């Protein structure tokens, strides 16, 4: 089967700093990839290059048989098929949870209001927030906001969801509720790329872990392999350090 996503030799430079120096990987349908790496390594930049929130300088991204990076690609249509979950949620402040989830359906997918409402309520229910539909973001906890933002991405029926450190802005006691939702998504067969330091999640949910440093992929492979017998010494070193910091209980 063809991969759902192909990333080929992505380069990105900010000023004189080359943030991505040739990143390539593939992702099959239903797979979850966890991306780890030190701060400033280009993980966020890589995610943003995939849906072109940031334009890569070189290289290609393919979503199925559509080249995302083609100059004439219908980028808005492509973006509507790729969910993006931000570290600081970025829920639309002036809209209720329901309207946050519904907006893309109405404005981008041109769905009727009734149908959009039904659809949005389904997704809010899926993330356990049916009873918060009428609440504004300011009245939701961080964990609830992040779950609404996941529902917002899910409602668009994306082929793939990109998560950029979805739990880094959360109080420790709220991390679990978000990770549980994500683990359930992976179980349901959603295709995901997750940048995270949560090694417990990575070990139990990821099909593959990608270790990045200085704008390149140092090593990638199944969690068991990377944790037990990494090929590059640096990978093991980083995994040990991060596991100490964030815990990696199995």
């Amino acid at each position: 089967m063809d991969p759902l996503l192909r990333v080929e030799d992505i380069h990105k430079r900010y000023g004189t700093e080359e943030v991505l120096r040739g990143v390539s990987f593939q992702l099959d349908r239903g797979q979850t990839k966890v991306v780890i790496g030190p701060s400033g390594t280009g993980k966020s930049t890589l995610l943003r290059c995939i849906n072109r929130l940031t334009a890569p300088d070189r290289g290609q991204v393919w979503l199925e048989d559509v080249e995302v990076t083609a100059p004439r690609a219908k980028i808005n249509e492509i973006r509507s098929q790729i969910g993006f979950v931000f570290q600081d949620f970025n829920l639309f402040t002036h809209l209720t949870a329901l309207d946050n989830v519904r907006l893309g359906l109405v404005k981008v997918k041109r769905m009727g209001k009734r149908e959009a409402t039904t659809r949005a309520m389904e997704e809010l229910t899926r993330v356990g927030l049916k009873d918060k539909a009428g609440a504004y973001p300011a009245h939701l906890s961080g964990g609830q906001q992040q779950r609404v933002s996941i529902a917002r991405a899910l409602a668009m029926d994306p082929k793939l969801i990109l998560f950029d450190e979805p739990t880094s802005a959360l109080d420790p006691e709220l991390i679990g509720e978000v990770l549980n939702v994500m683990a359930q998504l992976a179980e349901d067969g959603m295709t995901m790329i997750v940048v995270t330091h949560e090694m417990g999640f990575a070990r139990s949910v990821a099909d593959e872990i990608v270790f990045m440093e200085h704008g390149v992929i140092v090593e990638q492979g199944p969690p068991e392999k990377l944790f037990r017998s990494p090929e590059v010494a640096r990978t093991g070193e980083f995994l040990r350090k991060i596991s100490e910091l964030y815990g990696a209980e199995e």
Partner: protein
Amino acid sequence: MEAVIANVVEVTRHLPMLLRSSLINIQLLLALLVVGFLVGTVVALLQVYGGRFVGVVAFVYEWVFRSIPALVLLFLFYYGPAQFGLYISSFLAATLALGFRSSAYQSQVFRGAIQSVPPGQMLAARSLGMGRGRAVISIVLPQAFRLAIPGWSNEFASVVKDTTLAYAVGLNEIMRSARIIVDRRYDLAMLALLVVALIFLVFTYAGNGLLGVVERRVRVPGLTTAEPGGTRREHG
């Protein structure tokens, strides 16, 4: 004492004329607010999203209309076109001159409000597949307008008063009526002008009340700014 009472009675006789002409001020006010709001919003959007060249043009526009005295603008718009055989009404001249002037001030308010919408809002909208224009209309502006209400209220208070300047180009507004009274009876000057002042107190009071209602109607938790000169309390 009797003389004072007689004067009050005399001015009261002219009250209908003053009130009728104050309707012209209200019409002008509405015209100014519409022109100022629409042009101000466009100028602010161009300043923020227009790119370098367009942005500079928008800034020059703002600078020009904020720097030229209101009376000079009024005369320019009234007598300027007439020199080329284009005669426009004093109402239209005042609408354009004072409306553009207000748009320059309003664009400042809106620009600040647009810029204080966090960039993540735009990113999230784009990530859903909204185009930039769509995102501006659905996400940025609804938030920016709410944030702009306190600043906009100040501009509103200025514009209400500015409508009397149109007196200078001969619009039959309230100051002109007052002037007619004064020209006939010089000793009524103070009383007549106090009545004008009172009418403006009522206008401003009513306007602020209306704006307060609008603000409460559109208020959303987490989307308020500090009011100039005071802190806004958030409810809920």
